[in-house]
């Protein structure tokens, strides 16, 4: 059924459900698009329940209930129960602001499997400044304690950039103190809001090198105690990251209004036609929607990707980044050392200034 006849169609493993774009925080690297979808356009409870059922039938195993801040949805418990009842592993990705202890208890009763809480820094003042919300840090600590008390497994997510990159060790110590079983050290990826704030967020090459060594050391030191997963900062890399495990291969993303995207940044590529769960089933979208077939497989590739030995490993890198940095979404991700535009990436990374953040606001 795929547009490219010889591409085996995989079943998606994960579905990112952006339940709302509303969020009390204003993180300058927010992964939501610049054009946020308003509350009036959000899918209702019954539609989400139908989508979860269709996702499970399609082979999806895990659903990531995200946003915005999913706690901004009054029907979060019903939505979570629907995902659980569909047989999906349910993961709540939250800022912790807007989820009360009472709600958390109801979510646990509804079958919630895992909670991920973001932490902006290891010190309250800096953390609240980055989040653009006074008191956020304290509320995160409080909710993390509730999660652990309910024996729900906890991941702490730390987004790393110039303002906090020197405190990775302290942030991992905080995750341990909070009782997390896993910590994600995710360097900022530069799309949307982060791209807009790039010069204020970008660390130096030396900082990134040090941070990589620190993470390696922490992994050894805390082996068996906490799982440390890292998302690498690709502006300083030689090889590109495999775009969401391959475009239209492992995952899909449903926006608050119901548009289905191959990844959360895909709307930054102009000219792609996205289908909505309001008009199509998830299986139909996965197989036939033009956006999913645009970069599926390898037949869309040009040189140097087309004949590259790594083409089925990294899929030419990230399509959104290729477009953002070269203006051509089918180009080699310029993070790749084989891209003719590779040198420009280091030049862009070198532009740094401490301008005030452009906070993400609706």
């Amino acid at each position, binding site marked *: 059924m795929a547009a490219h006849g010889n591409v085996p169609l995989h*079943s998606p*493993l*994960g579905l990112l459900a952006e339940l709302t774009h509303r969020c009390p925080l204003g993180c300058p690297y927010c992964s939501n698009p610049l054009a946020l979808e308003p509350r009036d356009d959000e899918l209702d409870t019954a539609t989400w329940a139908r989508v979860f059922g269709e996702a499970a039938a*399609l*082979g999806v*195993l*895990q659903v*990531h209930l995200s946003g915005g801040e999913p706690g901004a949805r009054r029907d979060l418990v019903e939505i979570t129960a629907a995902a659980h009842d569909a047989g999906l*592993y349910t*993961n709540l990705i939250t800022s912790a602001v807007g989820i009360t202890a009472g709600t958390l208890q109801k979510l646990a009763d509804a079958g919630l*499997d*895992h909670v*991920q809480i973001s932490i902006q820094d290891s010190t309250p003042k800096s953390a609240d400044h980055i989040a653009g919300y006074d008191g956020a840090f304290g509320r995160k600590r409080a909710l993390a304690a509730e999660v652990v008390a309910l*024996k*729900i*497994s906890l*991941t702490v997510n730390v987004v790393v950039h110039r303002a906090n990159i020197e405190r990775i060790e302290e942030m991992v110590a905080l995750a341990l103190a909070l009782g997390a*079983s*896993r910590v*994600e050290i995710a360097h900022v990826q530069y799309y949307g809001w982060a791209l807009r704030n790039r010069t204020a967020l970008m660390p130096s090459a030396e900082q990134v090198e040090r941070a990589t060594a620190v993470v390696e050391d922490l992994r*050894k030191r805390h*082996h*068996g105690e*906490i*799982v440390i*997963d890292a998302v690498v900062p690709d502006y300083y890399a030689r090889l590109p990251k495999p775009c969401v495990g391959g475009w239209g291969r492992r995952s899909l993303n449903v926006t608050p209004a119901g548009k289905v995207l191959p990844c959360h940044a895909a709307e930054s590529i102009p000219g792609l036609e996205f289908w909505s769960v309001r008009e199509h089933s998830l299986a139909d979208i996965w197989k036939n929607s033009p956006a999913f077939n645009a970069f599926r497989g390898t037949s869309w590739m040009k040189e140097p990707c087309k004949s590259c030995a790594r083409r089925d490993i990294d899929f030419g890198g990230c399509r959104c980044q290729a477009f953002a940095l070269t203006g051509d979404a089918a180009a080699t991700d310029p993070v790749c050392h084989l891209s003719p535009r590779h040198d420009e990436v280091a030049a862009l990374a070198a532009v740094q200034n401490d301008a005030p953040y452009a906070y993400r606001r609706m």
Partner: protein
Amino acid sequence: MSEATPAIPADARPRLPRGVRLVHSEAQGGWVLLAPERVFKADTIAVEIVKRCTGEATLDAIVDDLAKTFNAPRERIFADVTAMLRGLADKKLLEL
């Protein structure tokens, strides 16, 4: 790191923690271990071991059961099982 890891006591009762589930998925081609934001394919041996990690059975009982079921030398089963359980525990996929 393996030289420093402590032995698993014979009376340990390994179990999957909340947030880790073993499920069978037709679409994904077999058994998988679902964990926080991660999915691990489980081969036949892993499935047989993990299925027995109920929090009820002791390590000794699990090894006895597997040795009997697969008619294999107990020492070899013991070595395989403890290595796998330690690996899973280090990844926070199992409680010992």
